[in-house]
């Protein structure tokens, strides 16, 4: 894929749950290598958009192209092929609680690669080193703290070296220091592996650290978008309020 080509192209996407219209014509484009952040209040539809991009939810209208392929209406088999190139970090990590950390990380490799046992072990250890949790390899998810779970979730999402990673509230529920560590970890992994990403958050500090481009979501559409400093200096009342409250 050519650098600076559009990897994710969302055009006029509408999604409703019963009578509640959550997305009302969302449009965004994410370029190869870019780290885009969607900011907005809780419950405004940020995660709905992320789940629509990966085919977990099905919008009623619009189009979503990921790496040139239309996701909406895509057959499951094709969707699964596409998903192998996408990593997803869930809000509460969504680690498989019947598997320990090692097995959680091995899971995507065993399912989708022909790697032998040695390769799998090496890759798992490498991922754990990257997120600084080698000592947690045999722990069960229930034995991990919130921050550790996020790190393992992050390690699992990138273990297949995906081109795209989608982060759903990667710093939610963490103390400011751990949240900052996670944001810096995301930035360093993205730079290291050349990942294109969309991050959904309401954490401005996280957005400041990782974002190339920020979208402000309100009332089902992107009200504004731009760089962090550009939005911070914006005259728009909602954007100003968002930045001031967060500060």
């Amino acid at each position, binding site marked *: 894929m050519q650098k600076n080509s559009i990897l994710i192209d969302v055009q006029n996407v509408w999604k409703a749950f019963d009578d509640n219209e959550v997305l009302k014509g969302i449009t965004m484009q994410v370029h190869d290598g870019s780290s885009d952040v969607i900011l907005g209040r809780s419950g405004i539809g940020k995660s709905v958009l992320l*789940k629509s991009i990966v085919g977990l939810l099905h919008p009623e209208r619009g189009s979503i192209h990921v790496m040139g392929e239309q996701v909406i209406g895509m057959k499951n088999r094709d969707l699964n092929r596409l998903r192998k190139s996408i990593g997803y970090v869930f*809000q509460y990590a*969504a680690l498989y609680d019947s598997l320990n950390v090692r097995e959680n990380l091995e899971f995507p490799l065993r399912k989708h690669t022909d790697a032998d046992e040695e390769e799998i072990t090496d890759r798992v250890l490498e991922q754990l080193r990257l997120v600084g949790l080698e000592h947690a390899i045999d722990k069960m998810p229930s034995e991990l703290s919130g921050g550790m779970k996020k790190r393992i979730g992050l390690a699992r999402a990138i273990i297949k070296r995906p081109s795209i990673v989608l982060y759903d509230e990667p710093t939610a529920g963490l103390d400011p220091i751990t949240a900052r560590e996670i944001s810096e970890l995301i930035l360093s992994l993205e730079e290291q592996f050349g990942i294109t990403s969309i991050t959904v958050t309401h954490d401005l500090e996280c957005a400041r650290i990782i974002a190339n481009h920020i979208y402000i979501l309100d009332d089902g559409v992107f009200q504004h978008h731009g760089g962090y400093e550009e939005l911070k200096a914006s005259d728009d009342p909602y954007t100003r309020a968002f930045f001031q409250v967060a500060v």
Partner: protein
Amino acid sequence: MSTREKPQISYFHYTRQRLRSSMEEVYKITVFGLRFFRYVFVPPYEMGQVRKHLDDLGSKSLPLLTVVGVIMGLILALQSRPTLDRFGAGAFLPAMIALTIVRELGPVITALIVAGRVSSGIGAEVGSMKVTEQIDALEVSAVDPYNYLVVTRVLACIIILPLLTAYVDFLAIFGGFLAEWLSFNSSFQLYFTEVIQSLTFYDVLPGVGKTLAFGYIIGVIGAYQGFNTSRGTEGVGRAATSAVVLASLNIIFLDMVIIQLTFLFFGSGT
């Protein structure tokens, strides 16, 4: 008059709505269950998961089933002996116990106990995976959650239930012998010869067939409830409870249908 009519209309609407939502639920469970047959013969085969569930569902049910099996046979013998003696039919006790256990009590009691333990477990486990987004995580990992979570559990239930039923049948018949031996010092050889002579292929076949269907019901209903869990941990509890209630009801209903079919095709066996 109008004040008396109003509640009648609302009750009518309420009943109609309940009936409609129940029918919709039955339809959804049927569609969910039928998907199993579409998936089970198509790769990828998650045999590792099936083995794991066989162990979870099977070996961990054994202690409870052992106790229930022996006591069921004991009680059946102790309760039946005085009545049979009154009609001078005490010698038929081993045959009566064997037929009752193999045809009916063994499969149904085993299925109900497994439904209580396993169906609720599946409902709770899959339900908690749903509310903590683990099912979504499987999906975005390009792993089909139905194949990975449902097919493996249903298959394990179908395989394990006939084996558990055979185990309970044997223990219950042995429990009957225990009661006879304690009361009358009956001969082991005589008792089991009577048991074996009384059983025919047509007594065993419907019993085994039933258990396959019961296993399917237990797995499908547990998984369906789990898969459709909503509203957090409260929903997980509800999924587990609903799984037991629905699975038990369906087992009893299906048993009634199978008894009728058995009589139709094989006769009453008398």
